[in-house]
């Protein structure tokens, strides 16, 4: 407590998030005057050095933005380059991409659930401690995570920075025989994932809501992952509803080519990450947004699990706005991704050739996919020989920063109303609030929309 009655909570380095960030919170007379998620991850200048590279290179290069969700980067890059070159990758090649992405979802979401988020619900520091009391659940989680990695490894060669993705498709596609053992394993893991949903549904969740617009891709008939149209759901306050309402609200969609007209990034002095806003308003991407926008397209087994877990039925217009419960939505997405992977494998016919030609073209292309932690947008401008002359990457965490800071303010304010917390309590609470959104700091630290000058 400072002399002027201002109380500061500074957390030097956030644990159990991917990347380097700190928290800075100022409280004065029961009011939160400042809540900053301070990202000090050193900048890596991807957009600058993408200039001058060949149009075939962004998938491999941008993969290195993030070791947690490399597939998201590779596939957003592919989509953007293919968009510029007016090439459509569809059929079994598109299905394989979705399968690969399912692998990353399973891996990344189970990583977050078990290794990063769940310890918060048990009041322990890490998964090793968690395993002392929840050994079977942790082992199940690691096995699920491994199953996700196996998908990425089979299709991509390795789980981190896969080598098999290329603009136009793949370098090599698997045979049906190669996929068969994977399917056998996934059938087991589907049951494990259903158990996972039940496990996390039993956690103790604080009451909370979030008054942000929710932004996710939408693709009619399916739970959008590797493609779709950006779609935003109105924030509750705009509809005169409380932040924790579970009602679906009106949505609006916009063309991916107009993405940078809607989502605008700005720089803040305390962070190497750029903040972005949607049509001038705070927004949130990720599991809660996807579940709100695409939930009704979940497979029956995932829908049933969601309902049993208390998330309600998205087909009836129920959404989840409690960020603490995002762990349940993630678990449902794991189950869905396994189910979806099985569906794709069962319908698989090896495409030939493994990639379509993508001749370069002087144009600007846009691409977005649903990274595990939210919408990831890429834009490239190519010259006639395919050289990249301009690049822009908008990762989910950059978009979510404003929402995270607002959640911090809201939660801390609420907590202060219930009495004076200790610094340790407050710190732990803030960390939980941040981890609710699985921020990926590495992703967020190197971007800017060039038009902001």
């Amino acid at each position, binding site marked *: 407590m400072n002399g002027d009655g201002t109380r500061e909570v500074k957390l030097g380095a956030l644990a159990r998030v991917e990347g380097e960030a700190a928290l800075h919170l100022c409280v004065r007379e029961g009011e939160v005057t400042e809540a900053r998620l301070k990202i000090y991850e050193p900048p890596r200048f991807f957009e600058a050095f993408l200039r001058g590279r060949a149009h075939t290179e962004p998938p491999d290069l941008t993969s290195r933005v*993030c070791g947690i969700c490399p597939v998201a980067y590779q596939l957003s890059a592919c989509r953007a380059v293919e968009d510029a070159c007016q090439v459509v990758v569809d059929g079994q090649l598109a299905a394989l991409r979705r399968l690969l992405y399912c692998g990353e979802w399973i891996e990344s979401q189970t990583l977050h659930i078990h290794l990063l988020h769940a310890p918060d619900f048990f009041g322990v520091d890490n998964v090793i401690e968690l395993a002392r009391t929840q050994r079977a659940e942790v082992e199940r989680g690691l096995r699920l995570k491994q199953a996700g990695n196996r998908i990425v490894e089979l299709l991509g060669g390795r789980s981190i*920075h896969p080598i098999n993705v290329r603009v136009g498709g793949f370098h090599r596609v698997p045979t049906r025989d190669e996929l068969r053992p994977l399917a056998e394993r996934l059938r087991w893991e589907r049951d494990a994932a259903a158990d996972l949903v039940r496990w996390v549904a039993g956690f103790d969740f604080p009451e909370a809501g979030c008054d942000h617009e929710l932004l996710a891709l939408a693709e009619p008939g399916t739970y959008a992952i590797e493609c779709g149209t950006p779609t935003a759901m109105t924030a509750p306050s705009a509809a005169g509803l409380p932040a924790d309402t579970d009602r679906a609200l009106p949505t609006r969609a916009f063309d991916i080519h107009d993405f940078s007209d809607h989502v605008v990034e700005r720089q803040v002095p305390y962070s190497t990450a750029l903040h972005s806003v949607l049509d001038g308003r705070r927004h949130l991407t990720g599991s809660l947004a996807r579940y709100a926008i695409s939930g009704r397209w979940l497979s029956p087994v995932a829908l049933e699990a969601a309902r049993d877990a208390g998330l309600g039925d998205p087909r009836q217009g129920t959404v989840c706005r409690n960020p603490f419960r995002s762990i349940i939505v993630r678990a449902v997405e794991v189950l869905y991704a396994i189910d979806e992977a099985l569906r794709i494998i069962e319908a698989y016919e090896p495409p030939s050739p493994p990639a379509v030609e993508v001749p370069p073209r002087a144009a600007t292309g846009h691409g977005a996919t649903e990274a595990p932690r939210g919408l990831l947008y890429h834009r490239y401008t190519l010259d006639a020989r395919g050289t990249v002359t301009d690049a822009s990457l908008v990762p989910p965490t950059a978009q979510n920063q404003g929402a995270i800071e607002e959640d911090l303010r809201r939660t801390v304010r609420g907590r202060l109303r219930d009495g004076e917390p200790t610094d340790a309590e407050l710190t732990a609470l803030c960390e939980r609030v941040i981890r609710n959104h699985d921020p990926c700091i590495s992703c967020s630290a190197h971007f800017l929309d060039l038009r902001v000058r």
Partner: protein
Amino acid sequence: MSTDGGRRPKLAVWKFASCDGCQLTLLDCEDELLGIAEEVEISYFLEASSAAGPVPYDLSLVDGSITTRQDAERVQHIRSVSRRLVTIGACATAGGVQALRNYADVAEFRAVVYAKPEYIATLATSTPISAHVPVDLELRGCPIDRGQLVEVITAFLAGRKPDVPDHSVCFQCKQRGTPCVIVAHGTPCLGPVTHAGCGALCPAYGRGCYGCFGPSNSINFPAFIPLLRRDGMDTLDVVRAFRTFNTAAPEFDAVSREEARR
């Protein structure tokens, strides 16, 4: 590795500028993770734990390159509290993909990415850990190989020299039984000049190696570069091929500069 009084050795994992992938590799050791935690005390690993144990650490794994003045100071501290320091991955070992800044004016880079570049404090270069402190072992790869990471940890526990060969990808490619993509398909492949460790993945998927493990210990560029040209790469392609994740490795740096002068 003997430790005082038979206690469990203490492991620390540190991060500098990187994508997190190499430290994530430790969490990707699903089969071994809980076992590792039983044999070593994971004393410092921010990505996985909010608890930090007391110094010194028996083994420090360092992910990422040095790009800021604060990080240059931090790595000195890490060295001073670590009995063994092993760098993990191309960033920590060769500056990583962000070392592409070494070829450009960073002020310009900063201006391209950030609207208010004055907020961003960064060094003009991205440098490997070994440019700042002595390093006991450098584990290659973008990302590192899970098997090699487990080998380093188990070898450390047994007091054994880790089996991390420095030869080229070709050795592993042949052991894997993949027909050479250069010979059989005329596909440009950096395998003959690239450090093994990945298990020769790319050729097994029908693509040429793109050098993510950096240079091997025995390279003959004058004989090798003409193969790339024969198989369709022009000067710019050759420069780009060596300017990726290990661009600041001295051998790759030199050959890319030489090619760029052509």
